[in-house]
């Protein structure tokens, strides 16, 4: 226990880096994911095809492989980018298809009768989408998106494991190597920091899902 308390500043520093990876990677994933989701429902066939192939390929690639590409292969091609930046890009790319799927399933989840009713009342495309479909799709996408971010929180550990970034997992590994006699306490300390993020988010998702499922 003493080791954990002594090294609390290190832990907090690692926790900060983890949160940074979560925020920047998550924002990047939201941007790419929204574009991919928009491409997937667009009337242009080529864009739909590109988005479908992208989703399938990235979803079935292990995160370790993506991070290794960003950390090992990209420097071979020339650009020397800092490891944390590679981490941001790898996490954003890896998470984007999951975001796209969450958004798409939200839009698909709105009953088709809602749009039909809006159209039969004389609403145009813009009105139907902004007034009828989106407000309902929005609440259906929030719980899945929270789940995507929970997974992303856990996935930041891979960046620390491969990418020489001192986030929570990296800090834990360094401390565990330095203090062989207190490995259990050190790693449980790391786990608690992850749980601080993931458990409340999971609780929030459950509450929102319960609240909104009735209104569907």
């Amino acid at each position, binding site marked *: 226990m003493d080791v954990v308390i002594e090294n609390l500043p290190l832990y907090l520093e690692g926790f900060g880096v983890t949160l940074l990876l979560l925020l920047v990677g998550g924002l990047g994933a939201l941007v790419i994911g929204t574009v991919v989701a928009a491409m997937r429902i667009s009337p*242009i066939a*080529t864009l739909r095809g590109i988005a479908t192939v992208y989703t399938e390929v990235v979803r079935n690639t292990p995160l370790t492989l993506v991070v290794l590409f960003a950390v090992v292969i990209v420097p071979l091609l020339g650009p020397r980018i800092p490891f944390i930046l590679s981490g941001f890009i790898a996490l954003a790319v890896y998470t984007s298809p999951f975001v796209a799927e969450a958004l798409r399933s939200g839009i698909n989840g709105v009953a088709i009768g809602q749009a039909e009713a809006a159209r039969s009342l004389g609403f145009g495309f813009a009105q139907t989408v902004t007034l009828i479909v989106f407000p309902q799709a929005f609440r259906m996408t929030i719980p899945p998106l929270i789940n995507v971010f929970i997974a992303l929180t856990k996935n930041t550990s891979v960046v620390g494991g491969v990418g020489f970034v001192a986030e929570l997992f990296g800090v834990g590994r360094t401390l565990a190597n330095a203090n062989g006699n207190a490995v259990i306490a050190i790693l449980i300390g790391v786990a608690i920091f992850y749980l601080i993020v993931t458990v409340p988010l999971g609780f929030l*998702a459950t509450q929102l899902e319960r609240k909104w499922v009735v209104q569907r």
Partner: protein
Amino acid sequence: MSGAGVLFDAPGPRARRLSAILSWISGVVLLGLVAWGIMILNAPRESGGITLPGMFDPSRWEILADPEFWSFVIFTGVWNTLRAAIVAAVLAIALGVVLALLRSSPIGWIRIPTAIVIEFFRGMPVLLMMLFILLVAGTGQYWAVVAALAIYNGALIGEALRAGLASLPRGQREAALSVGMRPLQSKMLVEFPQAFRQMLPIIVAQLVVLLKDTSLGYIVGYQELLRVTLNNLGSFYGNRYLFTLWCVAFVLYLIMNLSLSWFARWLAKRGDRRFRPGKATPALDASQAILVTDATAEARGGETPR
């Protein structure tokens, strides 16, 4: 909203022409991007006075013709990945069944600690668990990978099965009890088989995640596909083949994961409709499926999910 055609009027000839033109333009832009990427990869590079050939230079790909290369990749790399994944999958399903039964027990002393344990294991990274088992239990890399994957996915599968049990119509249990079964008999013979069948597509989808996560073994030093290609063969043949080796690992992972994903999707489509009233597209993400199943069960006023 599967039929997007409801949102706007049927396109006339002009709109169709416009969308065809845009389709061609985006196709050309895509081809341009791909060509640009290939050019970047293929450009020769100066490194300390030496000119290195581009990534698609034949001299970087000649190892693919070496039969020993393939036998090492397949019989050591792929085999170790699959070996860990299969053993972990079997253990995870077994653990999931046990956890689901404990978690839905009527006895609070069993139910609540199980719930806490499940939440604990679901909330932390698999990688951390691998490191923990490796350093604390000292089991060696193989069992660290297998045990961590089994515990993490077991907790998730257990939670999914528990949600499946809770979402069954109350009448199933009442009928079983009224024909004279004991509560345990009802759970094992009537409720559990239905819950398992309902959740099977989600369990298989979770197994795809498990297969992908074996690659985390790379970080704890288990000799799976990534470590075999990028590290072992990378240092045997030399750094100039790293890109080639990465591509080999990428393609092999895609083949394995895509076949399992398609199996999961086929299973979900084939699944019995009566278990999913009104749900056209089942969520294939396990955490999301658990949420939806729980919330639906509660809204329907069935047995309160425990």
